[in-house]
């Protein structure tokens, strides 16, 4: 016990926390992030890396299901902390740390869990690109929906009873015809399959024999369809939802992307749990805090860690009302951002919006330029706000999340992330919707 106890105590000092923000509960999330760092802990980017799952706020039905799935994917030892208000963050994290040390508890937990990863039976995988949030792979999940061959976007997950074991498509002639020949499989129940999404024409045939008979495909993996990419090559289309639980991503936003390679060819935006299901939050955040948070996300995604840390400190100082510290931090942030020509070259040209573009998408004037211009203008606004010396410029509104798909289509994945972070997205659409409703 002595050794494993010592190991556990050492391990807890480096705990990683996966923070899930229920839309509207920005204050709790920021408090969690603040306290994490003070303990020497770090945020985790994926459930695979997390020891603690910190749910900030009370999730709605859709997000709850998702959180449960994240919980399933955590390797353990794992602790879940439901934090409903900023005031309880400290005690919740203390409790989590204490529970993390409880080795016997985690041993039992590990034994009780399913050993093999699997896609939940009830998940509606057929709905990729469509509705069903259920089967969503928000990126960090272990569902691996990648498919690199040419296959129809079909889905087997809902068909637990289907017996694919006896099928042998191995000898199929793949050269000439695109689709599969189903006639040879009289016994198979195709009833539940969604053939509508299959693209039989453009690619070299599909093969079901991987299911049931093969160890490589325990089932439930949706396959990709093909399509012409921007270089005129036929490439597979992969459906990958971004969000709602993704590092440095606007809370609650879900962007269902169709990817070819890493280029987003189509996207669809929604908000988790629709509008207003997030429960009561503390209300809209102060503008400067939100901007700082967005700047931090953008800098972190661009990979300048020192500058991102600087933005975070500015945010936390603004949040707790420490004006001097805030002003210092903002000044430092401003200097860092302005000086770094590498940062400029990295963000230059990302989602360049000219006047016509702004009008077409109905965006406010402060979105003009590329990601770097928007970063600078936002830092400028933070300075004005924090300094309090200049009058606050007239606020002309944020960017509605509904335009995001139009903006990011055609960009490559990393640019999509930078583009989204560079926009002043309405941060908590659910809350705002309630407010307006």
């Amino acid at each position, binding site marked *: 016990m002595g050794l494993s106890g010592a190991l556990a105590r050492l391990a807890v000092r480096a705990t990683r926390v996966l923070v899930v923000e229920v839309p509207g509960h920005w204050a709790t999330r920021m408090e969690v992030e603040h306290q994490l760092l003070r303990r020497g802990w770090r945020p985790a980017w994926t459930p695979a890396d997390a020891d603690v799952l910190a749910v900030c706020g009370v999730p709605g039905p859709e997000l709850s299901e998702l959180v449960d799935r994240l919980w399933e994917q955590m390797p353990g030892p794992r602790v879940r902390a439901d934090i409903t208000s900023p005031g309880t963050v400290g005690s919740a994290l203390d409790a989590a740390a204490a529970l993390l040390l409880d080795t016997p508890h985690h041993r039992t937990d590990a034994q009780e869990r399913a050993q093999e990863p699997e896609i939940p039976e009830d998940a509606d995988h057929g709905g990729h690109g469509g509705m069903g949030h259920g089967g969503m792979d928000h990126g960090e999940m272990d569902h691996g929906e990648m*498919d*690199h*061959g*040419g*296959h129809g976007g079909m889905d087997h997950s809902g068909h637990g009873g289907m017996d694919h074991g006896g099928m042998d498509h*191995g*000898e199929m002639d*793949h050269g000439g015809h695109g689709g599969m020949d189903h006639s040879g499989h009289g016994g198979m129940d195709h009833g539940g399959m969604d053939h509508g999404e299959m693209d039989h024409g453009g*690619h*070299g*045939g599909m*093969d079901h*024999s*991987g299911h049931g008979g*093969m160890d*490589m*495909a325990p089932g439930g*993996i949706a*396959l990709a369809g093909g399509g012409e990419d*921007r*270089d*005129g*090559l036929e*490439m597979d289309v992969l459906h990958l939802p971004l969000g709602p639980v993704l590092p440095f991503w606007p809370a609650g936003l879900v962007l269902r992307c169709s990817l070819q390679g890493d280029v987003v060819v189509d996207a669809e935006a929604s908000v988790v749990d629709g509008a207003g299901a997030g429960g009561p939050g503390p209300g809209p955040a102060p503008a400067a805090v939100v901007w700082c948070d967005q700047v931090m996300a953008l800098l972190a995604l661009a990979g300048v860690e020192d500058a991102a840390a600087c933005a975070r400190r500015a945010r936390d100082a603004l949040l707790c009302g420490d004006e001097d510290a805030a002003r210092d931090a903002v000044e430092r942030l401003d200097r860092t951002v302005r000086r770094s020509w590498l940062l400029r*070259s990295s963000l*230059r*040209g990302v989602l360049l919006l000219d006047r016509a573009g702004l009008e077409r998408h109905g965006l406010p004037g402060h979105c003009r330029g590329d990601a770097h211009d928007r970063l600078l203008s936002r830092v400028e606004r933070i300075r004005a706000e924090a300094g309090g010396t200049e009058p606050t410029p007239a606020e002309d509104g944020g960017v509605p999340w509904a335009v995001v798909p139009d903006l990011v289509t*055609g960009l*490559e994945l990393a640019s999509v992330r930078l583009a989204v972070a560079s926009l002043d997205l309405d941060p908590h659409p659910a809350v705002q919707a309630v407010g307006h409703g």
Partner: protein
Amino acid sequence: MLVGIVFWGLAVVAVAAGAAVFVVDSMARATYALALSFIAVGVQILLLGQSYLGIITILMMVMEMAVMAVYMVMFMGMNPALMPMDMTHGKKTAIGASAGVFVLLAAGALLVPWPERRGAPPEDLTRALGLEIMGEKMLVMAVVGPVMVATIVAGVVLAAHRTRYDRLGDDLRRRPADDPQPGGVGR
């Protein structure tokens, strides 16, 4: 003795991995099986006293297979990890032909009375090789170089969709080039 054991071990690895290329279901595994085969042969070449060529073989082939994997995934048209792939034709003929070739070659190898070894390897092989290709055999290298460059150009021309006129306009004056993905230099 030890060298013999290592050699035969590597031989088994090389041939088995080579055969695995056409047996395994996954494209990634097939590609890296070939890489393994090359690594084994590279080490065998090391055993045969040619350190530079052995290591360069490993270097080049690992790099090539890393790229090859990408092409396999792109063009195989079959799911890598999910589906067994059997995209063959004329299997029996192929097996017959290759078995015949093997018997022929192996018999030749075993039956031909190979001459005695002439001369001894130079002390510093790599230096000797360098002197050779930069001296007497310079013509070879002088040819190989341009061929490589021509390969790069021809490969790009064959594979690329857009030409320079698409990128730079009809009079090749458009700056920066009209690319779907801008580069880092901003030409």
